[in-house]
């Protein structure tokens, strides 16, 4: 292949890759979302898998739609102070929503021996 064609092909490849990368950055990313979820400390109250705890609501599996998550984060008056755009951008919220959406459904407690047996020992009345 003549040298000039090779250079052109390489340039075309580079352009294509950068375009794809730019497009990917605007698309919510599960990996980025997980990193942000950990970096900004969502996991402290909500758990690393969004499972919730005594300190924070369950977020996943089956998270709220991205818009609802964003609305809550921006305007909450609960124990969790609202996050401004300065702290957490819209695209970062979208990434977090993508991460939460990627978390698979939990197993049924009946399929977990330590939880299944609990139900078998319920004594609702003494």
């Amino acid at each position, binding site marked *: 292949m003549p040298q000039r064609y090779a250079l052109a092909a390489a340039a075309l490849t580079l352009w294509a890759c950068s375009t794809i990368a730019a497009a990917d950055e605007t698309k919510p990313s599960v990996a980025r979302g997980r990193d942000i979820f950990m*970096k*900004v*400390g969502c*996991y*402290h*109250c909500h*758990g*690393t*898998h*969004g*499972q*919730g*705890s*005594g*300190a*924070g609501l*369950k977020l*996943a*599996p089956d998270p709220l739609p991205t818009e609802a998550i964003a609305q809550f984060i921006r305007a909450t*008056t609960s*124990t*969790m*102070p*609202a*996050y*401004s755009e*300065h*702290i957490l951008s819209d695209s970062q919220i979208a990434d977090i929503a993508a991460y939460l959406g990627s978390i698979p459904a*939990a*197993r*049924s*407690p009946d399929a*977990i*021996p*330590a*939880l299944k*047996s*609990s*139900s078998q*020992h*319920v*004594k*609702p*009345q*003494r």
Partner: protein
Amino acid sequence: MASQNVDRRNFLSKVAVASSAAAIPTVHAAEPANKTLPATEARRLAPPSVAQLAADTGEARPQLPASATDCGSDFMVDVIKTLNIDYIFSNPGSSFLGLHESIVNYGGNKSPEFITCMHEESSAAMANGYYKASGRPASILCHGTVGLQHASMALYNAWCDRVPLIAILGNTLDSTKRAGANDWRHSAQDPAAIVRDFTKWDDQPISLQAFAESMVQGYKISTTPPMEPIVLVADSQLQEMELVSRSGLSIPKLSPTLPPQGDAGALREAAQFLVAAERPVILADRLARTAEGMRLLVQLAETLNAPVVDLTSRQNMPTTHHLYQNAQNRKLVAQADVILGLEVTDFWGQINQFNRIDDSSSPRMKPGTKLIRIGVNDLYMKSNYQDFQRYAAVDLSIAGDGETTLPALIDAVKSAMSDNRKLSLAPRAEVYRKMYAENYEAARQAAAFGWDASPISTARLCMELWQQIKTEDWALVSVGASEGFISNWPHRLWHIDRHYQYLGYGAGGGVGYGLPAAVGAALANKALGRMSVNIQCDGDFMYANGALWTAAHHRIPLLTVMHNNRAYAQETMLLQGIANQRNRGVTTAKIGTAIEDPNIDYAKLAHGMGVWAEGPITDPKDLAPAIKRAIGVVKQGLPALIDVVTQSR
């Protein structure tokens, strides 16, 4: 009295005369103190020379004459024995050498037995845990200055927890009798001053007879509701003085004060409110001191068909009962027409909501809800430390011990309830049975989320543990400062139906309660044949981990499962919240709150103190087998620790 005026130094330099006129029965050492030892053992146990002592502590004290037969601290031990105090938790100190020696030799180191601790805060926390597991007050022994300063945090926890505890302090009041610089540093004019704001009573008796009377009086005061710690100074002069004769000395008989019962007329009025209510709610906090307390609460709830919210400073209501409705706390309070608070310290906090962000508050209940409060909080309180909580305006406030008052309240409720009313209340039972089943199922579903996560979820930690202890006679003896740190899983999913199966938490919020309180409770449970389990937060552990050595040394069976989230996680969350509120970013919240870099190896720490341990466990699949192995160790009568790396909550 001549015999009590013998100077300590004079006594130490002459031969004492045996006493044969003891006014009270005495208990003598079980074994002679000077039995023959092998030469190597004798060398190992040989006391330091006078020169060594002088180098270490200043002026050395003369040794007691071999023929000494009775001394002030022997009499003190006899006083303590009359109160059936099982244990004295302590680490040694020069201001109470005489009493220490009398406990282990004259008293035979039994009732009380000297439990060797590694810190005075641990001593007091162990005494706290011991009482909550056994119902029997224990004692601590420490320096009046440096020891009490260490112990003060745990005494505050006991104060907030309404726990009786007898703190005995060594002190040398007569400054001319202080042997050297250390005696001066270890003496005070008024040693109890630093804890007076959060102890119920104190005294510094200056004669042995006064010691006897103050000890019995202090015990009585401490064990009268509201039960609280008391402080008694045992002056070193009194401890070490010769007792030529016990003539004139006597030990007063303990006459326990019966706990106060609420006024009968007020209880009739309360009963009328409760019987007429359509949506009554019972809140119970430090109510059940004994099994009877739990039985009575169940009876009251069943008579009214009223739901109970157990605020878990004690185990008041069985979690297996359909009227146990902790999961519906807010909803029930919001809908209630009558709320009955039984030994609830923070009543205001139960009926109001406080917003930490803007410091605003709003009622949780609807207007017109009748409020009834029964408890001993108003009977005794102090002003400086604010554990009395915010004032709650109620409709009927009845001063009386909750457990003691329940029989009369139940009778009043039964008297106020017609047969027709009984019939009309009956359908409530079905409503709460259904609600109970829904609560339980919701908790089970919630526990499944993040089940396979690493770090390990607190739900999995608790349920893998529960799976293996539920067939034993178990007791969850400590959860540190709050069960909320493990998202309350035991109260959501464990079947806790004995009052001793859950002992509450460090009531003052003083970190360092968890492990030593668990060791004290486990010591009580050892005699009762119960398996003690401690879910141990990592930050709390690092304050008082020497308690593990005490467990190993005294062969105290205790299963400790670390909730190792590698942080002061509660503070991480709060710091994150305030930083976010100030719009300054949230990525720095781990500065000053994380316990990592390096990670602490708790298993190695435990090994170093002679305790069987495994971990750190990060794969949830490894958890159940490790618990099984640890239980095997505990069943041999020994402590065991599993380090589990966990989610924050």
